[in-house]
């Protein structure tokens, strides 16, 4: 069985190169996806994201990715902004509708500390799943100013300045991580390995 990880390239996803590199280090094969038709050539999808919620949704829309993503049944891993846009709505530069895989909103982090939250931080696994296997308590690299607010699909929480926020979600075969596994040393490579080892389409 083939096991190719498609990385959705929708214009603003600047860190594609790093993600490809980390997936290869984890023993996986990658394909950069520039058109929705290419979904047929891969087994799983990674949804990266750098920039704002609004711009990400605009780019996905203008590249024709929104419907194909909603109709897709392959496992998806959303990274950072790619996790945030799995939500119902985002509040960065006005209200923007997200992909709505996970009933959630994305709002600014309100903490008594510097924002963005940048640096390595622990994850506290609340509800373990395949991709977080063997990663309880590991440190991952975070770089974000907004957080996903959800109470039902939480896989892991992380604490920053006495504030706990959602650092990983899972619903069915949709996975999201607020941190950057591609920037998180061996623990990040391990997370990609777990994603590679997931069973494919349901």
């Amino acid at each position, binding site marked *: 069985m083939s096991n190719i990880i498609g990385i959705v390239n929708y214009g603003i996803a*600047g860190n594609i*190169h790093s993600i490809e590199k*980390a997936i290869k280090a984890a023993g996986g094969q990658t394909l950069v996806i520039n058109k929705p038709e290419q979904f047929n050539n891969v087994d799983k999808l990674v949804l990266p994201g*750098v920039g704002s919620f609004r711009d990400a949704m605009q780019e996905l829309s203008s590249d024709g990715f929104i419907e194909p993503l909603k109709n897709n049944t392959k496992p998806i891993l959303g990274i950072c902004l790619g996790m945030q846009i799995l939500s119902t709505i985002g509040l960065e530069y006005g209200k923007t509708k997200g992909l709505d895989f996970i009933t959630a909103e994305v709002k600014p982090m309100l903490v008594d500390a510097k924002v963005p939250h940048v*640096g*390595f931080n622990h994850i506290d696994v609340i509800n373990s799943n395949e991709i977080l296997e063997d990663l309880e308590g590991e440190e991952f*690299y975070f770089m974000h100013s907004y957080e996903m607010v959800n109470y039902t699909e939480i896989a892991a929480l992380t604490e920053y300045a006495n504030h706990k926020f959602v650092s990983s979600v899972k619903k069915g075969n949709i996975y999201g991580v607020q941190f*950057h596994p*591609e920037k998180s040393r061996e623990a*990040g490579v391990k997370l990609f390995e777990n994603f590679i080892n997931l069973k494919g389409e349901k």
Partner: protein
Amino acid sequence: MKVRIIAKLDVKPPYVVKPVHFEGLRKVGTPSEMAKKYYNQGADEVMYIDIVSSLYQRNIIFDEIEKTANELFIPFGVGGAVRTIEDFSKLFHIGADKVAINTYAIQEDPSIINKAAKIFGNQAVVVNIEAKKWDNYWECYTDCGRIQSGKDVLEWVKEVEQRGAGEILLQSVDADGRNRGFDLELCKKVVELVDIPVVLTSGAGSLEDIKEVIEYAKPSGVAIASLLHYDKYTIQDIKEYLRKNNIEVSG
């Protein structure tokens, strides 16, 4: 909150150099080999600053940067001679996670900060500050501490924050390369003034200097160059020392 310990590479392509008070340069290795070494030692990030291309009005040398990015599975910041949105875009494309800008934003067009933040996200835009101390204020310099700008550092950091910068890399023209400690007042003032993360660099001559500036100024990170380059200390040494002194670090 964990303080990030960042390895800083001052690059005069194709070598990492150690500037002595922004003047004489000594070669210490290639960027990719040094980056790999500090990655293996446990650096939280690597910051690559081309210290000559802006001054010589050269273009960015992308090959060396890409080669360095390929060695790392941690965040990688790049700065030096960044002048256009295309420069930002190309640097992200070859593996940079953050791009630092100084000269162009001060001398030509500060609105490049707004544009870059809007396109690439605030967290990806770092403003590099070279502060020179005068009697009762600090002035921003550019081109590796050579050109005066007339801008007050404390006003400029507020301005760049409002324009959407996601991080400040604070250098001191006076303390850089002297290994005699940080400009503590400058560091504290800037950290207190802005809400975005501030990374301090310039002046670490000992482990005590690093501890002192973290305790006094409470920065988000400290970027270390010469202390590492001559193998005086490794990143592990620095982190262990800080941990023993009750300062939280990763790893």
